[in-house]
């Protein structure tokens, strides 16, 4: 089996370059030898997070490291991988991951497949499928040697313990680039890849506790409708809809949400919608890819037991 290396950046000052959903999905998406390589300036603070990912992790630590210093990461990765045999290097499917992946592919002279749709691994090689824009075609790429991909894969955190090594890393002087965060960058809901949202169909504020448990299992953020936040069941900044936040997660779970347009206007960019509602005529089912007609609280309880 081809060994897989997943690259993450962890900068205590800049919340970019790492994805807990991908980390959760890594173990179940790929068989064979896997390792996470993390570039960080605060290794001791993040060690526990990676120690329960289920995947062996090496953290390259330098207190002067910054996400703005991408050449330092590329140079180090080049030294690590230049002499390694057949391996697959995985970056997150985002601008930073794609940029790093393409630059590393250039210095290693290996193929880079961005935004991989799905991957099939066998003993000797890997087949990657890639969407061709919005067309009805796919590009099917067979990799027989070292290669780099970027992808997004959601999963359930295993919470199994694994080895984490911390290595002191010599990183070249930072360049003159600076980082400017977006206005809502501290709101985890705005950038979440997986969201579990609750509506009035849950019945009462204490029903958000099992929803929060499910969110933890799915490595998701919790959202809500205006009807629920107006009642004070959950904080107002959790509201998704016209009056507050628009989101574009990979997966959106809507529990007890009817699908009023004021809410759906804030989540129509979701790639996949899963709706649970007692009313089979609820508008949310028109948007949903998957769903259950039934009591949302019962489904949340069952999901918490199954996952």
């Amino acid at each position, binding site marked *: 089996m081809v060994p897989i290396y997943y690259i993450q950046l962890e900068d205590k000052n800049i919340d*970019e370059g790492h994805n807990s959903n991908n980390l959760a999905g890594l173990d179940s*998406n790929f068989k064979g030898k896997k390792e996470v390589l993390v570039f960080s300036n605060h290794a001791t603070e993040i060690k526990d997070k990676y120690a329960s990912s289920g995947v062996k992790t090496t953290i390259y630590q330098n207190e002067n490291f910054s996400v703005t210093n991408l050449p330092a990461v590329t140079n180090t990765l080049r030294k690590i991988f230049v002499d390694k045999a057949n391996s697959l290097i995985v970056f997150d499917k*985002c*601008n*930073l991951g*794609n*940029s790093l*992946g*393409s*630059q590393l*592919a*250039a*210095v290693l*002279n290996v*193929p*880079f497949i*961005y*935004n991989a749709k*799905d991957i099939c691994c066998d003993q000797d090689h890997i087949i990657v499928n*890639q*969407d*061709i*824009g*919005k*067309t*009805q*075609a*796919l*590009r*099917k*790429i067979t990799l027989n040697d070292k290669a780099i991909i*970027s992808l997004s*894969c*959601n*999963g359930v955190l295993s919470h199994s313990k694994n080895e984490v090594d911390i290595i002191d890393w010599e990183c070249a002087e930072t*360049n003159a*680039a*600076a*980082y*400017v*965060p*977006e206005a809502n960058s501290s709101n985890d809901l705005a*950038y979440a890849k997986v969201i579990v949202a609750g509506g009035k169909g849950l019945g009462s504020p204490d029903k958000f506790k099992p929803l929060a448990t499910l969110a933890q299992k*799915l490595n998701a953020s919790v959202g809500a409708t205006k009807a629920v936040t107006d009642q004070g069941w959950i904080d107002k900044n959790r509201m998704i809809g016209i009056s507050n936040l628009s989101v574009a997660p*990979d997966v959106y779970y809507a529990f007890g949400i009817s699908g009023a347009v004021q809410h759906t206007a804030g989540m129509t960019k979701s790639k*996949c919608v899963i*709706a649970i509602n007692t009313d*089979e005529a609820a508008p949310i089912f028109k948007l949903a*890819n*998957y*769903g*259950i*007609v*039934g009591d949302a609280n*019962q*489904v949340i309880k*069952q*999901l918490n037991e*199954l*996952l």
Partner: protein
Amino acid sequence: MKIALIAKAEADNPKTYTSHKNKVTYHPENLFLSEEDKSALEFALQLTELKKGTIDVFTFEQNEAAERILHEALAMGATTATKVSAGNINDPLLQNQIASEFVHYLKENNENYDLILTGKTTSSAFPAAIATGLGISFYDYVSMIDTSLNYEMKLEKGKITGQCVLPAVIATLDSINVPRLASFTSLSTAINSSINNVSFKTSDEGVTSEIVAKPVKNEKAIFNLDQDPKATQKLVEILKQNGMLR
């Protein structure tokens, strides 16, 4: 100032490939100069208007699409246009080789560009490979850039800002500006303008990727918990099967 633009077709056009009964058909007649490359060319024009210079446009697209793209670029104000025949630039298995041949061509012809621009239609490694081959700086996902070369690189939750150091390869998004429209006169002139042709021989031994039809997606799956007590379990199975949950 000497500027090169690598111009490409719009990557997102759903009519570029269609499929019927698992057979995929390519439609180059639907390919035009991408919005991202128009914006990149507009930036190049602003620079040359300010600092005097030339803009050489290259495309690696093939057939009628190549000529259409180059004519559009000439109509907007590019100085020269060159069609490069070198294999499929969109194939990740060929990009490094094609980039290497292009770098060799630039060096052989003493084409010392101050700036090589390309619109970010896809996230391919091609621009990075050119920058690496030439040993020059590379700036990616540039969402804002001014004529003093102050730039912003768009990330998920913010942006990296700085100033570009030339010579450089810069891959820009279409948010950098609103490109000018070519006039009817310039379009007519451009259609009659000559296009240079260059060929690179890429290795016949290389493996290439395949274009296949996308499998037909299943209809949405909605279960009923009252009628099927195992509805939740079935939902979890189908989510795992379809990659929503692993």
